[in-house]
């Protein structure tokens, strides 16, 4: 019987670490990974709440579709995949022109 709060706190910690990574990492690929980390943290929240509502749905409201949280995780993953595809393509394109992966050197707001 794990408290829901634990899952949420874990998710919050992961999310904050992701943001932190975004802030302190210079390598654009690593920053991209930090984004993925944040997405995962959110997924954890989704699943946790899905299970939570699945157990407490009646108590709260009958409007809630208990499993929808997992479906949202599914969507998040799809979006993450698309994002990874495009983002990495962009990174490659940038690397071709700038010859660097350091975001501090890629600040001209153009390719």
């Amino acid at each position, binding site marked *: 019987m794990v408290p829901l709060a634990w899952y949420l706190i874990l998710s919050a910690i992961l999310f904050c670490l992701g*943001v932190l990574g*975004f*802030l*302190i990492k*210079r390598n654009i690929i690593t*920053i991209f990974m930090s984004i993925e980390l944040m997405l995962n943290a959110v997924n954890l929240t989704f699943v946790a709440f899905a299970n939570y509502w699945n157990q407490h749905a009646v108590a709260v409201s009958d409007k809630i579709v208990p499993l929808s949280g997992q479906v949202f995780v599914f969507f998040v993953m799809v979006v993450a995949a698309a994002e990874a595809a495009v983002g990495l393509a962009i990174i490659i394109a940038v690397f071709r022109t700038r010859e660097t992966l350091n*975001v*501090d050197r890629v*600040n*001209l*707001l153009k390719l």
Partner: protein
Amino acid sequence: MTDTLHLWVIPLLPLAGAAINGLFGRRFNNAVVSAVALLSTAASFAYALWAITQALHMGLPYNRSVATWITAGSFSAPFGFYLDQLSIVMVLVVTGVGFLIHVYSVGYMAHEGGFYRFFAYLNLFMFFMLTLVLANNYLLMFVGWEGVGLASYLLIGFFFLKDSAADSGKKAFIVNRIGDFAFLIGMFLLIKHFGTLNFDGVFKAVSGMPVEAGWGLLTIIALCLMVGATGKSAQVPLYVWLPDAMEGPTPVSALIHAATMVTAGIYMIARSNAIFSRSPHALEVVAIIGCITAIFAATMGMAQTDIKRVLAYSTVSQLGYMFLACGVAAYSAGIFHLMTHAFFKALLFLGAGSVIHALGGEQDMRRMGGLWKKIPWTHAVMLTATLAIAGIPPFAGFFSKDEILGQVFSSPHGSKVLWVIGVITAGLTSFYMFRLYFMTFHGELRLGKVDIGEEAHATTAPAHAGHGAAAHSHGHGDDPAHGHGGVHESPWVMLGPLVVLAIGSIVAGWVGIPAFMHGSNNFGQFLAPVIKSGAPTSPTAMEHVSEAAGQPREEQPENPGEEWALASTSVVVALIGLLIAWYLYKKRPELPARITARMHGIYLTVLHKYYIDEGYGLLFVKPLLALSTVVFWRGVDQGIIDGLVNGAGSASKGIGGELRRMQSGNIRSYAAWVALGGAAVIAYMIWMGVGK
């Protein structure tokens, strides 16, 4: 008959004319322009006639709101039009005389530049004036009030290339502002205390109030309105703009600065008679101001040598008469004089214009003389008008002026002193008018012979130069008989209106033949409802009613002998003035020079209009100028306002420069801002108690 007669058509027709001429007139030739202007004015005159007949059938007053203009809380000001006896008179005068002057202008302005502009302005003036007299609330009236001020400004500065003209326009505008300021305050007081500006509402509210013994609310309001009226109607101390207004083309002087606009103040006071009748003090002030203005302007008129300025001062003086009439609660008499004055003063101006036209732009009377053979028609009509204004029976001026003097003498508001001054003024009036007449039409033509003394320049130089320029712009054209070379009669397009006006200035007075002459003061009867409706109902003021209403005598028996005495007195005085003028300027033309030499100081003082302008300059203009320069221009405008504007500019520039750093293109910085924002949002939500 239709139950709604679309009164808004009356002012809108001239507006349409003004729009057409103003917007497209540049491409039209003069014929089209004048056609548009005349048609629009004539149409509004005709429609006004039809509407008035309808209204008379339907019963007065006719009051109809066309649309809502302003609605703020409980206060609302509609586009409403109001037609009662008073506005009927005004509308007829404005449209009628206005139309005649339009016709005259076609001939007079034929050779001027900016023909279309002139008529556009003139139609615009008609629009605003009609709005003024037809409005059913003070606010709409004020719109017309300001509008005619605007039109007058535009028309005085019509020859805007001349500094003197432009300055005169500005002077008129600014001096009027002072009056309008007071008018506004009066309106604010009305709103504050009666919550409305509609005539009905205000007068209904006022009619419940007793006559004020002391200086009460009504007195304050009345005084404010009165100051506004002094501005518009050129009364002491705000009359100074009117003489300079003569810079404008003569028809403008005739229409705006003699016949119609300057009488707006009188109209306003008569319209507000309900308020004035309840505040004796205000009435006293009005009467005194009118009286002073009358004699003051008359004396000044005596010394002027510029023909138009003489007429200007006489206008001021006559307006003083009207004020005096209103001041003794003889509103109908005032309006009566207003109407007759509209006729003969317009006639005088147009005649003077005709003379100037004939002499190719000469305005100085000392260069004229002996014109009666050369321009007989003009001479005839000018003589008629002069007799009328001098108050010689049976011309129009006699009846109205006699009515006023009679009222001043007998009205409880009036007094003998005022009456005496009025009579003296009548004498002076007749003197300077006949002086003008003799100097212009008798003796031999002194055109170009007399060199004008430097003191004369003080007054006539601008006007002379002024119209001189205009004259030269049209003077020597295709026609060799034109200009200085040959004095010639004006074309019929100008003479026609003169004749009509002449007839008017003979018969206009007959509508008000008082009872003791076995007439029945029809005019007074006609206006009675308006006056009576506004008259005080409290028993203490009951006896004023008949007086205020200007009722014929049968209501309160008075001995016709006294009436006869009064009338004859004024006539005699007028004749005396006539004789003096004849002796000085016809019999012994050299005398005046000696007299002026004898009493040189006084003469100069009068010639320079008692140095009023200079006094104002010293008292108000220079300090204001200094104040504006130092405080408002250097301090407020350059310091605060420009400071604010430039400060805003530089501030936004600086802020932008700072914020630009945020757009570093460094995604980590962006992420930092986002994180910060997220933290702020979460903190705010917690603070708001979300999740508690």
